[in-house]
């Protein structure tokens, strides 16, 4: 589903975000991406979501080489890749329902279909009763769940999450992880960047470890639990 072949990302300043990174994530896998700050986790997610393009090598998502994608195709790629952010990136001038509906509106889905799908997504994250609330009135964990509902409402085959539990206490973090596992069980491919090692260890999934832009370890599921 996600294949990196000798990918290097060099920024105009000369700083190398990623150095010669190669790996392959199968459809339906759930993978954690870890490493210290500045190791290149965010860069890797940005390249996968086509927020940036790599300098060398190939990034292939869902059998499409991203380097060959024209700018006009980028929106359609992003619809296939749901993104979840540490700071949620919600629109604070509109209620929860409208935030979650946005990807469907953008994709040109009809009104009744939108209502049905948004409620289904909100139900999945346990926020069905909050659809008329403004994001600012919600707790951090609830806001993050709204962000997740927005990412999954189009039922994308791939979900990317950048430090989704970064601001949450352990109990809320565990809840979010449970949610991700449930998406994974219905076939969604997940790539989750996190520096919360204890949480990652508990999950027992495959782990990619980055350090200074290089992929240092590719640990199979359960490797840290033994």
């Amino acid at each position: 589903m996600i294949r990196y072949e000798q990918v290097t990302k060099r920024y105009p300043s000369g700083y190398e975000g990623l150095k010669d990174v190669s790996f392959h994530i199968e459809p339906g896998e759930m993978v954690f991406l870890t490493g210290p700050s500045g190791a290149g986790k965010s860069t890797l997610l940005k390249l996968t979501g086509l927020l940036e393009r790599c300098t060398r090598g190939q990034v292939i998502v869902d059998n499409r080489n991203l380097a060959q994608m024209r700018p006009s195709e980028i929106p359609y790629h992003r619809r296939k890749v749901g993104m979840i952010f540490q700071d949620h990136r919600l629109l604070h001038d509109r209620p929860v329902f409208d935030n979650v509906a946005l990807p469907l509106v953008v994709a040109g889905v009809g009104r009744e279909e939108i209502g049905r799908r948004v409620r289904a997504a909100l139900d999945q994250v346990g926020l069905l009763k909050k659809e008329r609330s403004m994001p600012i009135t919600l707790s951090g964990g609830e806001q993050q769940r709204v962000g997740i509902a927005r990412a999954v409402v189009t039922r994308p085959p791939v979900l990317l999450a950048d430090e989704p539990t970064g601001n949450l206490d352990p109990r809320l973090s565990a809840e979010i992880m449970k949610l991700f596992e449930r998406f994974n069980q219905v076939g969604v491919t997940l790539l989750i960047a996190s520096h919360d090692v204890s949480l990652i260890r508990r999950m027992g999934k495959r782990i990619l470890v980055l350090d200074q832009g290089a992929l240092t370890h590719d640990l199979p599921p359960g490797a840290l639990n033994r």
Partner: protein
Amino acid sequence: MSLFKHFTPLRILLAHHLQTALASLGRLSRNPAGSLMTTAVIGIALAMPAGLHLILSNLQLLSDNWDGSSSISLFLKKEAPESGGRRLAERIGEMAEVSKVKFVTADESLAEFRRFSGFDDVLGLLQENPLPAVVLIQPKEQGGNPVSVEKLVEQLKKEALVDHAQIDLEWVKRFAAITRIAQRGVLILAGLLSMAVLLVIGNTIRLEIQNRHEEIEITKLIGATNAFIRRPFLYSGFWFGLLGGLFALLLVLLSAFLIQEPLLQLTILYNSGFTFSALDSTTLLGFLVGSPILGLLGAAIAVGRHLKRIEPA
């Protein structure tokens, strides 16, 4: 997985357009002070050339009515017989360039002069009538082409019975020339102020783009096309243009209303059949179609310049 295809059904696209248009209008109404100011600036900028155009076209109508002043008076020679004068008048009346002709005998001239001048007693002392017979000619040319009137006069001067011809042509000529200059000036002014409207709308949209920077970024992140992101801003420009045009219309009608009564009184004093026309179709079209197009254009320029720079990071 139709969501990931490059295709939106027409029905949904139209619904989205309508929704976006209304949302853009709603956004304007949520910032009434700012929107009103922008609308007023656009309205005033458009009302100025339109108002001048209105004044000019009315002046032209007025000068059409003044074509009477380019009527020709043929003063006949004193020795010309009355019958000869009448025949001459009849002949002139049949000319293609002439719409009306009136023969006034020397006696009639005197009688009229007596009535209007109040020199009754003095005139009684005169042994003979000092006034000549006159043929009054109204040339056909309405809308005043001074050159052809002049040609007609040259032709009539050659008549044997004619002593001299009088016409207030210089004044008509100058007036026509001045109107032409003023028209050109209004055109230039309209061009400049349209540019100003374009810039005002462009700047307003630029500010709106800045204010909604984050929203644009997030919308791009979740897969919005550029067309989708442009749409609300283009509609904002359209609404600003339309509202500005309507405001200008209001200003022009109001000014026309204020000016109408004293102007009509003036024209009554001049004994003219002039009627004031408040709006012509060009101006109306400019306000209701041209102004929204200006708005769209201004927004398109701003959007083209600023939207590309906003990329999610």
